[in-house]
């Protein structure tokens, strides 16, 4: 790993060089009060202030709607069309948060659990992530409780930390990161050892540990906690759709006579129809059982099966929830109670 310094004023110049040579650069852009990742063509207008975007950046590798293949029937013949190569674009994700970068790890594990999902893999392989370490946090942030942190470099190709108004630390973490720095070599100098990254980072006290949650969940399947916590949940999919690690999808048919395409689109385990069988039976018939699934999947099933937790502590679900289902608050109460 290489530690470099860039003048804070030169960050825009560096980004402009990246935009010039990379076909797709995604960065947070503000629309009204809220920021979202958008494809940018200029270094101006990037939002460096908001804590997180509303939606995670997972759509860069796992779009909300994508074609799996298209088909056409001609007499007895059926022609199949795979997704065109130019669908997979070299992408830089700029000013992601450490919790955004970390989110691709569980996503990649899910999409390679047994079947290797080539569409996801090809998109993800073309992504380079430039995270900006968090120098502040809001009430919904809890990355430090789930093993992350405001300066966590896991999953990042480059991490940028604003040390002060003049100086910005650039940690080059991978080959992909090196290529991005090489685009504007003369903007960087070597960082002195005295540069203290930790001092610049936000203070986010941990509320619990993920291991505590994992342990307590082993005994909590029949706990009354699920009904109590989920009473106000409306059963919408806002939490899952803004989540960086939620990967549930539906497969739909877009058929038009003798041609059509098969479509994959986001789905949510919070929806009552998600587990509805054709027979009418629903193994998760209540919101309490669906809420339990959400927590169990992220903090019990995923660590058991994939050796990775399904939560980055970004707090997006809590910010998006219309009835304030604050996940950190619910997890704290699970961590602090014994569900015998």
């Amino acid at each position: 790993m290489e530690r470099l310094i860039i003048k804070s004023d030169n960050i825009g110049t560096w980004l402009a060089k990246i935009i010039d040579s990379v076909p797709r650069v995604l960065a947070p852009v503000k629309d009204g009060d809220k920021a979202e990742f958008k494809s940018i063509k200029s270094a101006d207008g990037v939002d460096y202030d908001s804590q997180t975007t509303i939606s995670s950046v997972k759509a860069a590798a796992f779009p909300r709607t994508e074609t799996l293949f298209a088909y056409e029937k001609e007499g007895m013949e059926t022609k199949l069309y795979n997704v065109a190569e130019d669908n997979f674009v070299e992408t830089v994700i700029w000013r992601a948060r450490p919790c955004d970068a970390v989110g691709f790890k569980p996503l990649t594990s899910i999409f390679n659990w047994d079947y290797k999902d080539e569409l996801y893999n090809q998109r993800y392989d073309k992504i380079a992530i430039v995270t900006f370490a968090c120098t502040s946090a809001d009430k919904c942030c809890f990355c430090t409780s789930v093993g992350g942190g405001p300066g966590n470099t896991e999953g990042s190709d480059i991490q940028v930390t604003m040390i002060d108004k003049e100086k910005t630390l650039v940690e080059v973490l991978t080959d992909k990161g090196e290529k991005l720095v090489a685009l504007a070599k003369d903007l960087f100098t070597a960082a002195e050892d005295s540069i203290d990254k930790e001092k610049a980072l936000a203070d986010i006290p941990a509320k619990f540990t993920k291991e505590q949650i994992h342990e307590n969940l082993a005994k909590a399947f029949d706990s009354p906690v699920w009904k109590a916590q989920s009473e106000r949940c409306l059963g919408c999919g806002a939490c899952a759709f803004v989540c960086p690690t939620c990967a549930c999808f539906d497969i739909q048919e877009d058929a038009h006579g003798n041609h059509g395409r098969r479509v994959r689109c986001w789905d949510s385990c919070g929806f009552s129809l998600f587990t509805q069988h054709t027979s009418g039976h629903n193994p998760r018939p209540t919101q309490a059982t669906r809420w339990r699934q959400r927590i169990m999947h992220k903090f019990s099933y995923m660590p058991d099966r994939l050796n990775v937790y399904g939560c980055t502590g970004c707090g997006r679900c809590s910010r998006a929830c219309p009835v304030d289902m604050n996940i950190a608050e619910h997890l704290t109460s699970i961590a602090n109670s014994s569900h015998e």
Partner: protein
Amino acid sequence: MSKLSEKTAALLSEGTVKLIIGYEQGTEHPRPAFCHTPEDCERLIFNDECKNNLGVYLTKKEIIGEDKIAVVGNYFVIKTVIQLNRENQINLDNLVLMTVDGDEVVTFSSIDEMQQYVDTHEPAPNEKVLAAIEKIDKMSREERWAYWKNALSTCVRCYACRAACPLCYCNRCIVEDNCPQWIEPWSAPLSNMEWQINRIMHMSGRCVGCGECAAACPLDLPIGILTKKMGIDIKQTFGGWKDGSVLSTYSIDDKENFIK
């Protein structure tokens, strides 16, 4: 202990109701609260920040069960109860409806009382929404089409607008029908628009105007404009909210004769 907490705790300890739904302080704003014991009622609060339309829970059998419950709701919750009753979706015998007016805890004993409260406590209209409607009204048809296509293109179809609406209580929503598939269930500019058009049409003349659909939208899409505008148009064309559901009301005196 506040008057509200005292009154509600008494309802539970006397055994009048099994559950009280009200508001408690949340992370940033008040949120829905469910009280099963008199002690739970200590958490209850009521102020202008209590925005959630608690009427949404009144059609959820898994939450309210078969027992009598009490709801401490805001203006729009009361309006919602009137509408749900009109649509035969709730049993008023099993509901104690309350609100807080100034310092007083008010308990309604009839629909007439609720109607009277609604008639005399209408909140000021949302100026931002009215200004947005005015702006869109001035657009040409093509500009309007472009505006909505763009505004709804980012919709992720999480259906928070549907989930937060107390009058979206269908067991099976049209968007989940697939024989035939009326609306494509994946997110795409045209189907996103079809979804909203359907939602608004089904709300016509029934919407109580609480704005919870827009408040629930995680992406802040301007969908509250649609319900509000529909409400204004319905009022001008068919009369006020009290005159019943536009889509399901038929009168022999209707001026249209295609149905006769």
